[in-house]
């Protein structure tokens, strides 16, 4: 079936099958592989995107349900050439190692700061505990979120 949705401010069309996940559509059909697939079942957060400004795991959303809705992926976070302050903070603090979890964490952090411009440590823990990272040990992710909040 044909689906129409807005992705990073652009209108997109895709031909999808009924069970197709938004993550699959983004990665395989719309040329946006920034959102990562690390589990396909809602357990790791690496596929995080904003759906009508709400943080979701795109692997759990059916593309058919996104018909007519607005999606923002990691590719839509930066302002033109300049990194978004959250992206900049992740790079500067060393919060990126292999970077496979990073797109999901960036989107989740953007969402966190939209609701809580100055989050406490507990709020950071709460908000990002669904985003698994196997490399960094999370310490520098804390640093990144704090830095982005100050910026």
């Amino acid at each position, binding site marked *: 079936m044909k689906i129409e949705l807005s992705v990073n401010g652009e209108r997109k069309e895709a031909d999808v099958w009924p069970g197709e996940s938004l993550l699959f559509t983004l990665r*395989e059909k719309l040329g946006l592989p920034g959102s*990562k697939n690390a589990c396909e079942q809602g357990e*790791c957060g690496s596929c995080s995107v904003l759906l009508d400004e709400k943080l979701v795991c795109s692997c759990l959303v059916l593309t058919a349900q996104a018909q007519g809705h607005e999606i923002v992926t990691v590719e839509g976070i930066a302002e033109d050439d300049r990194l978004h302050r959250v992206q900049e903070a992740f*790079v500067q603090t060393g919060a990126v190692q292999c*970077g496979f979890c990073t797109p999901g964490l960036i989107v989740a952090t953007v969402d966190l700061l939209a609701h809580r411009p100055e989050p406490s440590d507990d709020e950071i823990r709460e908000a990002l505990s669904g985003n698994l*990272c196997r490399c*960094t*040990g999370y310490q520098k992710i804390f640093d990144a979120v704090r830095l982005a909040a100050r910026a």
Partner: protein
Amino acid sequence: MARLIRTEKEVEGRYTEQWIVVDEDVLEQWPAGPLETVGRPVPRADGGQRARGEARYTADIKLPGMLHAAILRSPHAKARVRRIDTGRARRAPGVRAVLGPETGPLTDEPPYEGAPVAAVAAETSEQARTAVSLIEVEWERLEPLLDPEEAVRRNELIDEPNREERGEVERGLAESDAVVEAEYRTQTVLHNSMETHQAICEWDGDDRLTVYISTQFIWGVREEVAKRFGLPEDHVRVVCRFMGGGFGSKNGPGDYTYVAAELARATGRPVKCALTRREENLDSGNRNSTIQRLRVGARSDGTLTFLDGEFVNATGWDGWLASTGGPMRLLYACENVRTVEYGAKLNTPPMAAFRAPGFVEGTFGLECLLDELAAKLEIDPLELRRRNHSTHDAVDERPFSSKQLLECYRRAEPHWERRDEVRARSDATWKRGVGLASQVWYGGGGPPSYAWVRIGGDGRAAVITGMQDIGTGSATAMAQIAAEELGLPVDRIEVALGDSARGPYATISAGSSTIPSMGPAVRAAAADAARQLIEIAAQRYDREERVLSLKNGQIVSSDGGSWPLEEITGLLESGQILGKGSRGPNPTGMRVLTFGVQVAEVAVDVETGEVVVEKIVAIHDVGRVINPLGASSQVEGGIIQGLGHTLSEERLLDPSTGGNLTQTLDAYKIPTIADVPEIVTDLVDVPDEHLTNLGSKGLGEPPIIPTAAAIANAIRDATGADVRSLPITREEMLRALREASRQPAREEVGA
């Protein structure tokens, strides 16, 4: 002149001898401490690409006409295929090829759950998976061997048992004033890199193959794939530009690569074979579980009289015997040491290297044992370790190339002295305590590894090498090393890596070896280019070579003149200056090792058994530090993996069927940001003066090694309970507390 020499090479603690060719001129090491770029924090060069979601991992690569593979895996731990019917799968929509068990590495006698039996290539991954579900198999189930102790009894072993002894344990026993004996157990742990194992294979004709793969060793994949398909190695190109974590599990090509290559050959199209998370947790390697029966004796002053250990590794169907007894043999000065290591061959998935394989497990046992001994002798645990400090490698009497462990202990003191203060914060429910553990590991790297440096007319430089950056930031470290030698700002250095067709041979990124193996080659290549720049500048500006140097992008003369580098390189227009460098040998007759100590502070809820790690201080000696930002990130990452190993992670098998019960990330608990304690990193940044032109050892593995024992020892300090089995779940903690309360003599400890 090139010189041929025979040298020793070590990866993950396994030594081999080999011939290498080294260049004659040996560079002096730089002075210790932070330099212009080396030793200073530098954010990773490709961080922006990764943060924008623009980095293209193997998982993101789409080739024109690419098909997707799915694998039928054995649902049984041991079985035989009586009959297989792939007819319905072949006719399913989108399917382009089906391979049955007659094609290797597929098998009709799977020896463990998850072993590959059949495979499908289809237009989409969904279609391939659907087709796999349509393959009909009639199984004959066989009785699996799952118990490692039973396997040892039956002599079902992966290899000969490894027996090593120095001195005489019986003599040591006779000289002991105190003896402690205990059994420790560690669990099976899964790597769970965020990018699962995957490869794309594309044939060009029938004798050239390109492999895009998420790997820690481009050249190892090239060699093994070439061998398997009978191709000249240069006909195999291996590409890994961005890589989503490996931790030891991605050191070779793996069945999925061969499946992709076979399906690509059958269809004439590129084929991607990517493991799902469940497959990842079934069959991509693991840190095998261990049973360790250990004994230690000491005189009343704490001098160790003997160490004795029997280690049973549940290796699985394939793999190698991890060096679980290594820490016992290497860490302390003790004359009488005996270890025997068994690798049980079981109907369970093969183990794979996992960040300091063997040493993580063996250090847990050894360092807990030492604390139990300290309690018995009523000696301070830090003091006990100091008294048994070794000044040389007692295994073969070699001196260490460098060892700053006493300095690590000295720096640990203020953290260790917080014991009373931390314990005093205990209340009726929450008991607090402090524990420590030492670390020893390899990490010296070795030859061969090569790099080229290319300087263009614009005065920018490229480091070109066939190494991979598995996420640790080693590419940035290489840029820093080249920048230092060339006197260029680091942002004028490009590092081109990740492709066997575009750069020379480079080290495996395992065994903490990328920086110590690759760094010296990069420095040598940059020095070669720098020498040429100086020679050219001397002619152009009519100066003697010895008065010229490179600094801040300038050619500087000691008589006061300076010229931008581009002025010289620009003369050549499209011409380039090319430098080459290779990794020299490790110091002959010396043992290169890394050392460290970690101090943990914990709180234990004695009613529920909950353990909270509040702080870990990590002090490590890894020689010269290239990038403190990347280094502390490695330390933190290692500690958090260690924390998972200690408290929450465990692959559970159904004891009767051998079926994996923890295939998802819901069932298998890796730490989240909510679990993170305060971490303090302190690196003793003293170059190893005998090791290469750099003096840097590796850091990937050391930080995960002492974490479990430091936490367990802190728990003992807090509660008096001996936790001897990982993971320390609430049940395990409560069991240990119950046991401790039955031994009133120990109760006052830490009360």
